[in-house]
């Protein structure tokens, strides 16, 4: 079953000059797949990721998530869809600095409103424990190290049990030990829980060990 599918996606940048950044991208991503998007900088992989994430709606072509077309869906409906079905890990923009780690992890679940407060807190603790951060739960997130922040962000991406987890360099700030931990978690999520992972990465090891690699070059898929 295809959890993500794109049909002939094209995108142009108009500033500073017109530039054809994505050319006829058609991909199918299966449920439970662990996919790495690689390519040189400027190849369009991040642009593709943001389109897949539904945050960027300025393109031609069609995007299907979980079998449903996102064409003509309002921004608010897309936000609700992201909240429920997609988790994000960004490289440089992690957490809300004024909240504790625990609160940061809880926010998407509080927004979703599927569980009660106590259960959300319990779940958030579980996710933090999974990433070895239970002792940092009550710290303001701005007081954590870069690697810890990134792991809190991963915990946050997991809180709503999303169908898809998207990462823009999800291990970019982590040492090899933590990279290993995160990689193992991702692998387990895909294999044991059937979640799908799409990650943009520069880490060749990380990419080689994932299920599938899509390499981008000059706005098109190379392999």
């Amino acid at each position: 079953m295809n959890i993500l599918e794109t049909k002939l996606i094209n995108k142009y940048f108009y500033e500073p000059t017109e530039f054809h950044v994505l050319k006829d991208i058609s991909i199918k991503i299966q449920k439970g797949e662990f996919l790495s998007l690689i390519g040189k900088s400027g190849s369009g992989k991040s642009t593709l990721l943001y389109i897949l994430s539904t945050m960027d709606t300025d393109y031609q072509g069609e995007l299907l998530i979980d079998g449903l077309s996102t064409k003509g869906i309002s921004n608010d409906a897309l936000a609700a869809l992201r909240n429920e079905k997609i988790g994000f890990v960004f490289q440089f923009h992690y957490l809300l600095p004024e909240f504790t780690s625990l609160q940061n992890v809880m926010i998407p679940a509080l927004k979703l409103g599927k569980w009660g407060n106590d259960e959300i807190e319990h779940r958030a603790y579980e996710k933090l424990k999974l990433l070895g951060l239970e002792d940092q739960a009550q710290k303001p997130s701005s007081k954590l190290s870069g690697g810890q922040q990134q792991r809190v962000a991963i915990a946050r991406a997991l809180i709503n049990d999303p169908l898809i987890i998207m990462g823009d360099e999800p291990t970019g700030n982590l040492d090899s030990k933590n990279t290993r931990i995160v990689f193992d978690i991702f692998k387990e999520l895909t294999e044991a829980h059937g979640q799908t992972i799409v990650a943009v990465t520069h880490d060749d090891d990380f990419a080689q060990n994932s299920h599938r690699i899509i390499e981008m070059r000059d706005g098109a898929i190379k392999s």
Partner: protein
Amino acid sequence: MNINYQIANTYLWSNKKMTAVAVFGVVLGIGIYIFMNSLLVGFDKSSNDSMFKNIAHIRVFRDDEIARPLISSTSDATPILINPKVVPNSNTIINPKRIMQEILKIEEVTHVMPQVNVNAFYLNGKSQINGLVVGVEPEAANQMYQIEKTIVKGDFKSLKSNPNGIVIGIGIADKMNLKIGDMLSLTSSKGQTESLKVMAIFQSNNAQIDKYKSYVNISKAQSLLAEGPNYITEINVNTIDPELAPKLAPQIAQITQYTAEDWKAANETLMAAFKMRKIVITFVSLTIVLVAAFGIYNILNMTVTSKINDIAILKAIGFKGKDVIRIFTAQALAIGGIGVLGGMVMATLVITLLRNVYIGGDIGYFPVDYEPTKYLQGATLGMVITFLAGYIPAKKAANVDPVSIFRK
């Protein structure tokens, strides 16, 4: 608590100083607004009070009539009547008792009183003082003008039991060296001379009036004009609310067929001055509230700019545009709400302080009171303006494109 409000709350507390400055701005703005508008109400009340000591809300009288031809001519025809004059008619109101009863039937009318005005000279040896003798029914006049409150010597009530009594202004008493019990001679415009006994002396807020006005019984005024007991020059009408007078005057004119003039029409210059006072105070107080709103706008704008990463993350993890709007307008409304409450406290303090300041003269204590309607107005205005001041930056935040932030 909803997650939006939790976030709003955290932002407010994480920036205590800025929040406090914004709240303080609203406190000042709303405080001054409520205070100045209460002051305006106080001023109006105080000037109305002193005005209604001398005039009624509505005055019914027989206006001079210009002679008219019996046949009305078209405009291009030669006029039948050239240089028409005032018809030599007495200005008495015919059948005043029945007219007064008719006026009293109007629901909003509280007092009706007949009055006879006599132009007279107070005689003081060889000199004469020009004056106005007002013939009234003492009890009714007191109810209407609150004359007893202005009496400085003697007793106004004793006028009723003494048909030859007169109550004079303190200016006349000083000029003519009169005490209670002294006799005062006066000559009316109709040439009647009377010697009347001073029963009481009043002092109004207006020295001009104190120098020429006096009160006598209505029968004395009629005899000064050599007229009978049915001779009435005007009927004074008071209503439950002076503001109703301009609306009621035409109604009374229609019922009575005489001219009915409301106090606003009779004092147009004064009304214009009041209006100007109102415009200036309203303008200044609104400007102050607006400045406070700019404070909120500024601070929220800065918050939006400094939290632009947070906003991008929130939108990425599923917050809708309207959630972001709620987060920021909630902050504005919290600042506005606390500020409005503080402003009410501040207005109450300033009003309490000023109420106890003695000004003197006819005014006495500073004429300001706690006006619930102005408090309500200030609070509503404060909340509306802070909402708008918050909504504009919130809208900007809601339109943040997360992708453009993440790509930086």
